């Protein structure tokens, strides 16, 4: 996977809030440097250069899949993309969209009335259910530095290194007071994969787990702590299912 610069970079969005692509667009300070090494191909949010390339070097994919037409687009993209990167919680696990309960048709009807039942949609699925994913960038939203470092590493012919650790580690490194320990707050830091520099606990907001569950997490014990702190089983479920795939 060594590409000629500028690398042909595509961004495809499926069912999502656009936050992942906005994260890249928000890297204002790096935009000029980026413009020297990438060429945008399908990146509808910021570019009108569409579909004019047979081959894409790196395709970034945002969002979950919710309809056959999206799947078709994804498959076509995979065929022409050298590398495919799933970006963000929706692409990795389905994201908050997954939380809609019950039968999809019923939910559609409750919202759109009759027309809603005619759209061909299915419950949100992560990207890896359909195509091979070469790399993943977690987060809702993802971190700017992870996107930029990945693009820079691709220029060197590889994927960036990263540490597999929970948010707590970064939280302690930042010398934040511990919300779980001191306030008995439902902080998901102990089981959430780090990389955000413990952004939320750093300002006193318990981690909502937006970067997904860290390897070998001890969820049982954390639930016990939450329960002891007075959360109901339903509260705990709601808290964990937001980004945790515990449906």
């Amino acid at each position, binding site marked *: 996977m060594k590409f000629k610069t500028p690398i042909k970079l595509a961004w495809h969005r499926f069912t999502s809030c656009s936050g992942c692509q906005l994260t890249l667009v928000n890297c204002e300070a790096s935009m000029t440097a980026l413009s020297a090494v990438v060429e945008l191909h399908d990146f509808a949010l910021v*570019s009108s250069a569409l579909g004019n390339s047979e081959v894409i070097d790196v395709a970034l994919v945002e969002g979950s899949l919710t309809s056959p037409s999206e799947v078709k687009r994804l498959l076509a993209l995979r065929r022409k993309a050298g590398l495919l990167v799933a970006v963000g919680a929706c692409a990795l696990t389905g994201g908050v969209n997954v939380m*809609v309960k019950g039968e999809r048709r019923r939910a559609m009807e409750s919202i759109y009335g009759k027309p809603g039942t005619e759209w061909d949609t299915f419950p949100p699925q992560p990207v890896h259910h359909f195509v091979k994913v070469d790399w993943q960038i977690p987060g809702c939203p993802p971190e700017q530095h992870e996107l930029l470092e990945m693009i820079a590493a691709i220029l060197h012919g590889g994927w960036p290194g990263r540490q597999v650790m929970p948010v707590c580690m970064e939280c302690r490194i930042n010398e934040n007071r511990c919300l779980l320990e001191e306030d008995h707050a439902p902080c998901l830091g102990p089981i959430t994969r780090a990389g955000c520099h413990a952004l939320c606990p750093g300002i006193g907001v318990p981690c909502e787990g937006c970067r997904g569950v860290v390897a070998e997490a001890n969820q049982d014990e954390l639930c016990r702590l939450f329960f002891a702190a007075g959360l109901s089983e339903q509260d705990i479920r709601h808290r964990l299912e937001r980004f945790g795939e515990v449906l």
Partner: protein
Amino acid sequence: MTRLIVDPLTRVEGHGRIELLLKDGRLDDVKVRLLDAPRLFEALVVGRRYDEVPDLVCRICAICSAVHKLTSLQALENAMAITVPPLAATIRELLLLGGHIQSHALHLFCLILPDLRGTPDIVELLRHNDPLAKAGLDLKAFGNRIQKVAGGRLIHPVNPVFGGVAYRPGKSDIETLAVDLLRWQRDWPDLADGFLQFGNYPDACPAIGNAIAAGSGGAFTLTGDRLWLEKDGAVPVADYARLLGERARLDSHAMDAAGDSGPFLTGALARARLVAGRGLPVDLPLAGLGIHGNNIAQVREVDWALQRVGHLLEILLDDDYTAPLQTAPAQIGGGIGTAVTEAPRGLLVHHYVVDEWGTVVSADVVTPTSINQRVMATQIMADLADEQNHAHLMAGAERIVRAYDPCISCAVHLVPVAASYGSSMAKP
């Protein structure tokens, strides 16, 4: 009969398409379809605790995530009759303004400027060291710094919480913003002139639609308790559903605001038309401006936002450090709450019904782009009636839609009014 299709729309947020129908070479019918996949947020929040809902609905759209979060908090706080402390209100407003600055900068310099320069995107402009593109990105970065400081996390901010805010931004952060602000108050007029110098906005008919905006009637603000209309005065926000008359459409994934007073026009241009003379520095003959005037109105709104940010920073600089950040709910109780905010691209409404245990039983979100959906097609028809060149037609139509600064993921929200929950507001 010829059908021209622009799909997908580019340099707008979300997935949409335009269908242009030509009869005998002349434009006969236009369809603007907002095609983001439905995400069923209004179904998703039902059954959740009131304080969890703002964290979820901000994920409707990233560009407006702060506005969504603040509006839903406000609606839920209204439902439980809570007033946030003044300091929290200040920090929240700062977040809102940061969002406006970043969103307008994004729209003007990343999405519109390439049209004016004739390039596909800003990356191309940067490659050629375009000074306007660079300065515009700088302004965008400034808006983002404000959002980061006030919101904690840039997208999907976490600082606003039920009852107020979680933390007070550090003094040094506020001071740094104040220094940046001085620079922007100095540099912005030149940058604004640089943008406005392009005389090549396409000629257009005056912008169609009954302008609508939130406000309180006093000075220009981005929130308020009434909805103001260019024609027909004002109504209390609680009456939004009747006024807007949203209903589902078969050909679009966004609701359609089909109320009798419409079609409506919302956004910077509508605000400007409504509030000229109330603090928004607009010195333009607004009435005759076409929809591309929305860009000019956004430029003017940045003037105002920069002033207003200065005022808020001053408050945050010399306020006392014991001031409360949150109001605790006296008791969790049921209620109905509505709140409106002017998002960068127009009117946003959140409405919730909460039961006595604090569980949300129904939710309704009306977004600016679904409100504008109607006028978009009409405007294209009006502006391009005489255009016969297909390429020009397609480009022109796309530019008209782009001028509304639409946000399609916002628009494609959902509207369940689960009748079984006995909601007070039913939709036609």
